[in-house]
């Protein structure tokens, strides 16, 4: 097996046994990036030279036992909306094309403390707004399974880079499905942790009450390992919750006997692609074979989730993105004669169409006279969504749904139709609205060989339950051995 095909836990084992060195691993990934980036276009910034330098230092420090950490020297890729000191953080926007953060995001600090090697900053939809990564100002990332298709979004660069073996794992962020949906489209594992499990400090905010950082990995065990690194309370983020430190790899038991899985029928109705539905039904059967107890139920609030999501997310975004005003940092128009011009022209020229659409939507729903009808109502529905999930979790350990109603769609197929683009999030948004953890794992492919994702939703801070269920399923179907990205042109 080639180095780049290995998972992180496999690399870790080989480093421990001295079958591989940090430099060998890093070089293998750099070679791979050099080979595949022209097709996949996953990176906004590559740090290959810096990575090689760091690999050498880490290798020396490991020899002198200055570094004893087992994960030291494992490469990683980071979505370009997490602040990295000294390295550009662009959010794939013209607005931040040359922005260099003066500080590291908490997750970046944590990754650095483990001596992971940052291979680069990964492409995304501008300010994480989108479901295809086509709204990046810089480039359109391609789906490694078929280069004519989108990788999903907004963490499309992260998911594509992991699928194409350009990084062994990556960090993504998920506001309405931005980790899970691209992971499903690219046939990898994406986990959105419970809101508050991972610090948001240094994550450029899209919608503060929904945003959460999480791992995108080749398999479930790697997901647990990366979650171990990034989870935990942070004094700098008061919405991060004080919880006991857990070792998430301990829960991977390869056993789901007696686990109660609820299937919300609303997620299998109209609008769900027939092949997706068929694969999901097979997966459900698989769980039954593995000893889980499966039951269908109704989660009828789901129908309102998408509307609720777009009101809340856009409202918060309209405020969060106010700071990009051309005054202190970021893009400033050349065309101004007074203050209003600076604001108007910098923002008109610096933001892309989708970002502007959402700022306008969000400004509208918060405006006096409309607040009660939209924002307040959406918050009320949000409470109902939480209640319905709470009721479901009285009966079930896990809720199982498709991750997205379709497989990856063709490039340019939806980018001019926002409503259709928004529908790609329909299965994932309610998880963010409720603040629950959700994981997407590949469960099969369609007739064209495109991967299909299955979403497992857990109760608050019960990442262990969904990780174990995902792990058990993964072991049973061996997706990674059966299917590989084909880079179809």
């Amino acid at each position, binding site marked *: 097996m080639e180095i780049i095909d290995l998972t992180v836990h496999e690399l870790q084992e080989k480093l421990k046994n001295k079958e591989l060195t940090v430099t060998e691993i890093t070089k293998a990934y750099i070679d791979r990036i050099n080979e595949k980036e022209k097709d996949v276009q996953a990176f906004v910034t590559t740090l290959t030279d810096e990575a090689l330098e760091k690999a050498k230092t880490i290798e020396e420090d490991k020899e002198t036992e200055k570094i004893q950490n087992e994960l030291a020297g494992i490469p990683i890729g980071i979505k370009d909306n997490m602040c990295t000191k000294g390295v550009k953080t662009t959010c794939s926007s013209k607005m931040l094309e040359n922005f260099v953060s*003066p500080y590291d995001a908490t997750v970046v600090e944590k990754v650095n403390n483990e001596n992971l090697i940052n291979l680069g900053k990964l492409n995304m939809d501008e300010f994480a707004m989108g479901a295809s990564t086509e709204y990046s100002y810089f480039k359109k990332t391609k789906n490694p399974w078929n280069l004519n298709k989108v990788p999903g979004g907004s963490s499309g660069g992260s998911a594509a880079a992991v699928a194409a073996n350009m990084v062994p794992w990556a960090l993504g962020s998920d506001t309405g499905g931005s980790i899970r949906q691209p992971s499903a489209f690219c046939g990898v594992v994406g986990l959105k942790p419970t809101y508050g499990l991972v610090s948001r400090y240094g994550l450029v905010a899209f919608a503060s009450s929904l945003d959460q950082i999480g791992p995108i990995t080749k398999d479930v065990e790697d997901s647990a390992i990366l979650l171990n690194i990034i989870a935990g309370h942070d004094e700098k983020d008061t919405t991060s919750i004080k919880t006991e430190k857990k070792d998430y790899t301990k829960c991977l038991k390869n056993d789901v006997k007696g686990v109660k899985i609820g299937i919300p029928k609303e997620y299998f109705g109209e609008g769900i692609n027939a092949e997706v539905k068929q694969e999901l039904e097979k997966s459900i059967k698989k769980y039954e074979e593995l000893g889980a107890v499966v039951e269908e139920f109704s989660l009828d609030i789901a129908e309102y989730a998408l509307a609720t999501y777009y009101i809340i997310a856009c409202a918060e975004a309209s405020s969060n993105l106010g700071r990009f005003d051309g005054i202190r940092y970021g893009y400033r128009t050349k065309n101004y004669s007074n203050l209003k011009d600076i604001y108007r022209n910098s923002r008109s020229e610096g933001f892309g169409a989708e970002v502007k659409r959402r700022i306008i939507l969000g400004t509208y729903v918060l405006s006096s006279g409309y607040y009660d009808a939209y924002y307040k109502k959406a918050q009320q529905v949000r409470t109902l969504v939480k209640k319905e999930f709470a009721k479901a979790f009285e009966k079930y350990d896990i809720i199982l749904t498709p991750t997205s109603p379709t497989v990856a769609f063709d490039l340019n197929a939806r980018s001019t139709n926002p409503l259709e683009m928004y529908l790609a999030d329909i299965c994932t948004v309610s998880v963010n609205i409720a603040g629950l953890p959700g994981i997407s794992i590949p469960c099969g492919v369609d007739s064209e060989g495109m991967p299909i994702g299955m979403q497992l939703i857990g109760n608050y801070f019960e990442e262990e339950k969904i990780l174990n269920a995902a792990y058990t399923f993964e072991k049973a179907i061996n997706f990674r051995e059966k299917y590989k990205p084909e880079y179809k042109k």
Partner: protein
Amino acid sequence: MSKEDYEVVIGLETHAELSTKTKIFCSCPTEFGGEPNTHCCPICMAMPGTLPVLNERVVEYAVKAGLATNCEISRNSKNDRKNYFYPDLPKAYQISQFDKPLCEKGYVEIEDENGEKKKIRLTRIHIEEDAGKLNHDEYGRESLVDLNRAGVPLIEIVSEPDIRSADEAEKYLRKIKSILEYIEVSDCKMQEGSLRADVNVSVRKKGETKYGTRTEMKNMNSFRSIVRGIEYEVDRQIEVLENGGKIEQETLRWDDVSGRTFSMRDKEDAQDYRYFPDPDLVAIKLSNEYIENIKNNLPELPESRRKRYLDEYKLTEKEANLLTASKYTSNLFEEATKICNNPKAVSNWIMSDIAKILNEKEMEAEQIPFTAENLAELIQLIDKGTISNAIGKKVLVELFENPKAPSKIIEEKGWVQISDEGAIKEIVLKIIEANPQSVADYKAGKDKAIGFLVGQAMKETKGKANPQILNKLFMEELKK
């Protein structure tokens, strides 16, 4: 109709910077001044990805202010975002409180023009962050942003429209200032902008129950400009109405130099702040225990001091009121009294001579440059007869100019009182000889003439002669 036919209605929104060590959402210092953009960090400069963390001290100080002004304290409060664009507001929203302020429904008491107690109700007190400052270059070409003040904690105290004159407005604001100083939550330095008020003014015909349209004067930062501004605005509004015009609801800027108000923005710019709960901050939940604890540890408030001054020091109602109006005069009084044990004298000095000098110099009590020990010593020196009252007044002037121990001042200036009878007698004889007419007047029964002679002797000794001895010797000599 004339001015007397109108009733003036005033409400104040008072902003006080809290004297916490660090800013409201980060750990930068709140200290005034400093080189531009040196009291800043990624958080108060609103770098992408940063998050606010609420300074618990700010909540504590606001609760203190609420309790000291008879407010109800909310057990459940939250922070909201007030969205607008301005270069001194780096996030493009101010974190403030909209519909759930920390404190509500309070009041303070002032005296109206008839000396009657009057309650001014407070609608609310909420916490928020201050904005930065713009420095405009002299040519008006560019403006530079200084974010040192961005994120300094503020409380906004909103009064009900209970104030009926400029005089009441001044009394109300003095009361607020005094309370905030007593409980030590703000230094209330108006000249540094740490206490400032937006003043809402409207007028209506007497007997009318509906309020008139109000105008708002922003950021008033001296008592004088508040009084002048209100008087100007009242006259202007009445004139507009008397001429059949209508008052426009608008935001005004008071200009101290020209003594008039100017409109700040046009109506097209009517702001919609799009308030909504800040999703980066969790709700503020306060327990009864927390609030009780703050209540029990509040410093003594002016009202309680006032009562104590009546009982303990036997001061008059007027004296007690005036002394407790400011924490600084009250503290000066108590500390000096503790040392010299002469409350009446301390009170007199503070209320007459010190007050007179403060007034002349346009200074506030907190700017008094000398200590309570200095004042106490001055009184002791007079009580012991080391100096006369007249010299005492000169020492006080000196204390304002060049504060040091009064004993040192009189030594350096040679102001020690002459109490040697032999020396004084010489002077007395000299004055009698030089003023035969006055001596004759006195002997003819004009008792007043002795005053003139004593005055002459004082002049001769530059005020240093002991007045009792001087009097006694004149009487003796003139009886001969």
